[in-house]
């Protein structure tokens, strides 16, 4: 783990960075370390076969301009694990090999909107979860719930949720 540097001296600055909460590619360090280490080269966006990774622009903020992020509702991360090894600066952990070790964030179910929790049969998120039957499990009444220790935050559940807007969303770590 790298030292955080002097950004700790600027609590306001740190807050604005953390308030953005972008979903970062797999293997990303914690947000403060990530924006210090990412050199904005865009290699991860080029190797992503699903075009999940986008590049933040000037309008997204000076501190994150050029950094990679994922819009899970549009294209989630399919955990092919091609991006961490290409990162030149180690902003993405190059040693990360297994998708179960990814921690991009964690999914959160809005039970008031979730079809299964409202009595309709729906197992979209449960069935598409790549950490099948571990990160999202079903209770005795077939309602999904999330194991935050197992959830990798890939956003596939958010992508497949039939409710608009999604009743399950990924909160970046």
């Amino acid at each position, binding site marked *: 783990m790298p030292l955080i540097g*002097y950004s700790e*001296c600027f609590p306001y600055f740190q807050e604005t960075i953390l308030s953005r909460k972008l979903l970062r590619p797999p293997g990303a360090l914690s947000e403060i370390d990530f924006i210090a280490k990412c*050199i*904005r080269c865009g*290699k991860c966006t080029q190797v992503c076969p699903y075009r999940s990774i*986008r*590049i933040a622009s000037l309008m997204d903020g000076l501190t994150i301009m*050029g950094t990679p992020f994922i819009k899970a509702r549009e294209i989630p991360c399919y955990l092919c694990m091609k991006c961490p090894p*290409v990162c030149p*600066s180690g902003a993405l952990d190059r040693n990360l090999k297994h998708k179960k070790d990814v921690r991009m964030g964690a999914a959160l179910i809005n039970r008031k909107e979730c079809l299964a929790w409202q009595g309709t049969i729906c197992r979209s998120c449960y069935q598409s979860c790549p950490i099948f039957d571990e990160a999202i499990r079903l209770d005795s009444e077939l309602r999904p719930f999330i194991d935050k220790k197992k959830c990798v935050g890939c956003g596939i559940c958010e992508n497949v949720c039939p409710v608009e807007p999604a009743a399950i969303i990924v909160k970046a770590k």
Partner: protein
Amino acid sequence: MRIKVFRRIAQILTVLLIIAIPVLNKKGITLVTGTLYSLAIDGIWITDPLSGLQVMLSTLSADSALLLSMLIPIILAFVFGRVFCGWMCPQNTISEFFDYISRKIPPLPPFSKGGMGGLQIFNITPSAKPRYAIMILLLALAPLLGFPVANLISAPGIISVQVSKYFYEGVVGLEIGLIGLIVIFEIFLLRRVWCNYVCPVGGFLGLFRLGKTMKVIYTEDAEHVCGGCLECAKACQLGLNPMEGKIYPLCHNCGECIVICEKIKDKGKPLRFSF
């Protein structure tokens, strides 16, 4: 003329590379990936040393793979000088093109004070000091603010990343406007202002110089006769005079002065590249 042909080929290849990398990667050909911040050529990593240094300063740590990948540009600068700037950088290619065009337009008041027929309002003697000041400021801000601040104004990096973004997302970020601002500034205010006075990337690459680094040398003796026509100084877009010496670290070894000298003189040329 060989220098000019080789340099044009290098400039065109760099532009083609910036476009070809995202196009080929999108089709699944990942032999070469990256942008001008960081390239990977079949396992060989090349990283912009300024970006790498900022990461090391703001994380107070050194990653061995990152350090190793910074070596190729540093060795290139030690051997050939700032040839990245003069022979490859897309911003230099763009600036050079617009400077060439603006010299073709007859100057009208108030655009007539820029010296040799340009449109620029201001005309000041080139100095490396502002560029160093900007570079040091940005390098100090990187650890203070906790992100690579100099990359906000790294023109070659922004150009190549935005080209890649365009091919992947179909849009470009507003930061590409920096390139337009540079071009407008250079045409109307101060000739070649970016490379000469601002660019932190070029400023940093200019630090890697030794006595043996490739340079333009001027010899005036029995074998090398200089007519004193000053065409070399006029050919230099950066406003340097190779006859005076002391053109480094501003000179980026583009060799335009040598090319014009060769054109004028058949033999006994006083200007040449030397190590």
